[in-house]
């Protein structure tokens, strides 16, 4: 594997994907414009003025763009700043990480710190803070932080126990290249854009609910926005025209709202698709860069083979892991549909790293490392089984809870769309 060539390839691929992303945003604006146009057409048609309205007006376009563009921008900026505000250390803590001090005397942590320092020299980056996720028995690692100054690296307990020095070095090198290539920054921005599109869906649903709520309150207590309309129909006389107009307007607005919601959903889906594709390219890039730093394809290659070999592979149990799935060494979620996966398949990655790989995985290596672990934790042997069993059942429910509470929080902080909170979070859980 020629790593410089591989780096160039991955970099140009992900540039294209980011371009697609911007195109997607533009298309969404266009789609919303047509949704609004459709609404206007319907309204005019119902009014029966005869003359069909112009397909394109500057006013309508600027109104649409004036609402959609700031909405997406605001949504993405807000989300980006929210993701940023945690900083690398905050992310590590929310994933259940424990900081490893510079002066640690535990042999395994000492080795981890040393390996991180080695890779800092090899990559020419400052030494980041190091975290250990004590409750994770899968083999995985992550890099977090927006820039070089707040970058951190976290490693699971499983990785420390299962990987040898060279393998750990490969994994850490992979994470360093995420820091060096600015992948966390890229992904934070992409997540921001995805959220901006999600806000569009919320806007559509907000419209919908607003009208739905309005008509409900009308039938309930006889008060509300549409009181005038019901009185008009009762009184007869000259109210006929305005009655038809208002009805048509409501239906037109609902139509627009439904269309915008649909555009938002489709947009979100494709945005996530592109984001996942970008993430996968960046993983290949990080593998290639890890090779450049360590000049040792066996290290990182065998680490991946070992992930393939253990029952628990690289899955994390912390519910917050879903939000940072892209920052990990290997996939961190149990159920990843291939086209929405943040990581390329293990087999493809290993095949790119190790030329004459036979397709076999490495067996877990408990005996030697376990001994060292038993000294620290007397009942280690019994808990390992419990962890493995508990993990199986807990993962799916944890994931769903994580997604729900996360969205719940988004909405709460957003404030703007409080009214559709219940609806939206329910919907999201069904989806995920």
């Amino acid at each position: 594997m020629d790593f410089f060539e591989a780096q160039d390839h991955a970099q140009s691929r992900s540039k294209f994907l980011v371009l697609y992303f911007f195109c997607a945003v533009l298309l969404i604006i266009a789609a919303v414009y047509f949704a609004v146009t459709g609404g206007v057409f319907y309204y005019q048609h119902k009014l029966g003025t005869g003359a069909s309205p112009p397909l394109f007006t500057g006013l309508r376009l600027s109104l649409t763009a004036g609402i959609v563009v700031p909405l997406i921008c605001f949504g993405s900026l807000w989300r980006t700043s929210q993701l940023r505000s945690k900083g690398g250390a905050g992310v590590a803590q929310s994933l259940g990480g424990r900081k490893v001090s510079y002066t640690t005397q535990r042999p395994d942590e000492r080795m981890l710190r040393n390996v991180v320092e080695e890779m800092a020299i090899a990559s020419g980056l400052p030494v980041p803070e190091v975290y250990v996720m004590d409750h994770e028995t899968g083999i995985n690692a992550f890099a977090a932080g927006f820039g070089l100054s707040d970058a951190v690296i976290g490693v699971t307990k499983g990785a420390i126990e299962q990987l040898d020095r060279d393998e750990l070095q490969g994994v850490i090198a992979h994470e360093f290249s995420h820091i060096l290539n600015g992948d966390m920054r890229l992904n934070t921005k992409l997540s921001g854009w995805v959220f901006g599109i999600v806000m569009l869906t919320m806007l559509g649903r907000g419209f919908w609910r607003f009208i739905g709520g309005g008509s409900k309150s009308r039938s309930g207590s006889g008060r509300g926005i549409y009181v005038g309309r019901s009185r008009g129909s009762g009184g007869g006389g000259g109210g006929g025209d305005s009655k038809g107009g208002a009805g048509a307007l409501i239906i037109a607005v609902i139509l627009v709202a439904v269309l915008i919601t649909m555009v938002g959903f489709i947009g979100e889906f494709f945005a996530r698709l592109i984001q996942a594709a970008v993430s996968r390219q960046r993983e290949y890039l990080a593998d290639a860069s890890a090779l450049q730093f360590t000049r040792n394809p066996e290290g990182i290659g065998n680490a991946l083979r070992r992930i393939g070999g253990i029952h628990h592979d690289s899955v994390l149990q912390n519910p917050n892991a879903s939000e940072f799935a892209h920052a990990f060494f290997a996939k961190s979620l149990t159920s990843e549909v291939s086209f929405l996966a943040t990581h390329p398949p293990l087999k493809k990655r290993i095949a790119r790293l190790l030329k004459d790989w036979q397709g076999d995985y490495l067996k877990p290596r408990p005996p030697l490392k376990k001994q060292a672990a038993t000294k620290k934790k007397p009942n280690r042997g019994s808990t390992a089984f419990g962890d493995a069993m508990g993990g199986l059942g807990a993962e799916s429910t944890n994931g769903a809870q994580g997604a729900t509470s996360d969205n719940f929080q988004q909405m709460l902080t957003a404030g703007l769309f409080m009214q559709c909170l219940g609806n939206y979070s329910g919907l999201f859980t069904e989806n995920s």
Partner: protein
Amino acid sequence: MELIFISIPPIQRITFGDMIGWIILGVIVLILVGIVFYVIGIYNTLVQLRNRFTNAFAQIDVQLKRRHDLIPNLVETAKGYLKHEKETLENVIKARNQAASARETAAAHPEDASSMQNLRASEGALAGAMTGFFALSEAYPDLKANQNMMQLTEELTTTENKISFARQAYNDAVMRYNTDREQFPAAVFAGMFNFLPAEYFEIEDPTEKIAPKVSF
């Protein structure tokens, strides 16, 4: 063109012969100033590149020093277990002392090729002695199980790795410097301003590559 020929002569009667002296002078001055700036540019580039590789050497130097500090501890720990292997331990200490003094000279003048060659040779010898020591310690399971020994081995391993990664950066910087220094116009001035060729840092002993791979 015609206009110029017609309009100028009546006003200023300067012949081409009068002007040519000034033109030549001006061109010469321009060329001289250009050359001076060019030489200044070359000089500054060479200074920059030299600083870069000496700085890169400082990174290696830190790790070399650390390794030289660790080895006496290692020998001290091993002494109790390797009572009958005095010779090997003495070899290690001797090689270590030689390398430590070579390091001090090289650190004072990283641009001096001969001190760098000296360091390379003595580091090679030390690596050889260490390989012998670790090969020997394989036969002493008690020593391998010693907590202190395990810690020291890990520290030595990481220092070795750091040296080799820092060495890549150093050698890259040396290559940049040497290439710039040897290219044509710079090569003329490099000697004049005492920019000597820099030495790569490669450890000659082939066993050096095996030394950090100690498995316990």
